[in-house]
């Protein structure tokens, strides 16, 4: 994995993105994970055009087709490759639509939490003193409680709903970004370029967000990739517990929960396939994150 790196150092005319990609692509496993993840995202984005059925459109559902095993033919003539659920929804279509919710919630919450957490972390590192102490005390408090409890507490307070789940996930996740951003920024702020920016008497926000922030990004990107996977898993768990997204917009977690009650009568497919989709998504993101960490972490380079 590290062999081409010495060569990369000798090739100064190569663009940094090209170099980054070549280092990333040194693991075929990681490229495979990225490819599968891209396919999943594309499928979710283009769901209305590629699914045989719109699972939210009750007109297209036929209750007679309820709980059919995989490979059954529908009344309308096409095949339910992954079977149907209790309302006669094509599982494949429901899963692809469910992916939209799961990915949307996961990525959306990671972005918001990233912005909030990074901002606070940078402020803590740059200003130090009391601001730092206050923010970091909050981070410590937050991290001393397990994520599922914090999310439970918030959802117990604000109730179900897609936006409420995003809110809960943001509150669960921001502290991780804040801690990482602060740690990196504390190292970076001692560098000469910050001193240079300060000696130019630039406004503080400029120094923090245009000079400090870009140099703190690599570890934050790594954290973000793992947090997306965590958020998707947590959202699925909350929805499974009946505290997450509403029944009208089932995410993968809720689809699994719906199928769970039919599991004991041997109708495994309603739970199994959404579960596999969830699993593949999470594992792919983690594989990509692992490789990103290796590529972006200067200490891992030999």
């Amino acid at each position: 994995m590290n062999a081409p790196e010495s060569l990369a150092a000798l090739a100064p005319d190569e663009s940094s993105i090209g170099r980054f990609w070549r280092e990333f692509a040194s693991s075929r496993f990681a490229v495979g994970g990225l490819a599968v993840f891209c396919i999943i995202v594309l499928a979710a984005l283009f769901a209305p055009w590629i699914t045989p059925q719109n699972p939210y459109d009750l007109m297209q559902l036929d209750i007679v087709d309820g709980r059919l095993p995989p490979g059954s033919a529908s009344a309308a003539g096409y095949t339910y490759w992954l079977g149907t659920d209790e309302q006669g929804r094509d599982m494949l279509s429901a899963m692809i639509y469910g992916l939209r919710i799961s990915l949307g919630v996961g990525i959306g919450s990671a972005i918001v939490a990233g912005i909030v957490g990074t901002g606070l972390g940078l402020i803590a590192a740059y200003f130090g003193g009391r601001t730092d102490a206050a923010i970091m005390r909050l981070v410590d408090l937050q991290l001393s409680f397990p994520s599922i409890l914090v999310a439970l507490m918030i959802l117990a307070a604000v109730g179900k709903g897609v936006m409420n789940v995003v809110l809960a996930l943001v509150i669960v996740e921001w502290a991780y970004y804040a801690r990482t951003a602060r740690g990196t920024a504390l190292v970076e702020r001692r560098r000469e370029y910050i001193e240079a920016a300060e000696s130019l008497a630039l406004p503080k926000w400029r120094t923090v967000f245009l000079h400090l922030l870009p140099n703190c990004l690599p570890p934050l990107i790594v954290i973000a990739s793992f947090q997306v996977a965590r958020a998707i898993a947590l959202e699925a768990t909350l929805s499974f517990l009946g505290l997450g997204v509403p029944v009208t917009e089932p995410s993968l977690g809720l689809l699994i929960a719906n199928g769970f009650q039919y599991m004991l009568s041997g109708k495994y497919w309603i739970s199994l396939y959404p579960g596999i989709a969830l699993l593949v998504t999470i594992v792919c993101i983690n594989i990509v994150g692992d490789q990103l960490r290796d590529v972006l972490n200067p200490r891992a380079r030999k």
Partner: protein
Amino acid sequence: MSHWIFRRALQALSVIVAMSVIVFVAVSVIGNPVDLLISPSADLAERTRVVAGLGLDQPLWRQYFNFLRGITEGNFGRSFVYNEPSLKLILQRFPATFELAVAALLIAVVIGIPLGLYAGLRPEAKVSRIVMATSIVGFSLPTFWVGIMLIMIFSVQLGWLPTTGRGATVAVLGVEWSFFTADGLRHLLMPALNLALFKLSLVLRLTRAAVQETLPMDFIKFARAQGLSPARVVWVHVLKNIMIPIVTVIGLELGSTIAFAVVTESVFAWPGMGKLIIDSINTLDRPVIVAYLMVIVVLFTAINLIVDLLYTLLDPRVRLEAQG
């Protein structure tokens, strides 16, 4: 030193108070439980009577002070649903959750440490690679889905293990335990395994990392140079040194295992605290939600405090930093 302990304890207390305000205010914002408890046909007089009976007609700050006074007397209010003191409800279910969490940690340790040792001692072996790859999957798999798969395989397909409940229990020291009956153990096995999976991966990776850190150290080289058998080097010299961080982490994880039991208990209908809180959230049973959250807050703050104190006692560097 005692000054520091005092300050740290005070800090823990203020965390508990702060959390009690947050929990109370947060939970009091949710929909009016009166709507759930009273039939829509009830007339205004009856409504008012029930609202007053539950103390819901008073301003929030007074409700909070009533609640605080209640806490000091160990009284968190009666459950709207069960009409029993909510703290009693939770403590009644605590043994089931505790039993499950301890069984899970036991599985994690008994399987995780030997596997971690092996992977650390022979990092290039095929078995080690498989173990490490599996542990990544163990981190990635959502607990509830693993639970469902366990049920599908061992209950539905193979019919080996029961799917729900605690099975037969027997009273020891006045508390019912599944741990001591064969039927109870059969019921306990799958939920405990399910809850253990994540911790197992954690213990395994921790052990492996610790072994790899310890092996190149001088005292191991000296032990080998002394001509001690490789078994003795591993089981006495390596193991003794890696146990401190592992035991610390396991202690810390007890709290989060109890918290994550929420998921496992819901999958296997295990009648513990976790299932109670999920049911209570769904029925907006406020006193139970608040009492559960407070019990957990106190539990966590206590665990964190104890770990902090132990560190201070064990490691002089932390002590100096705390004073400085």
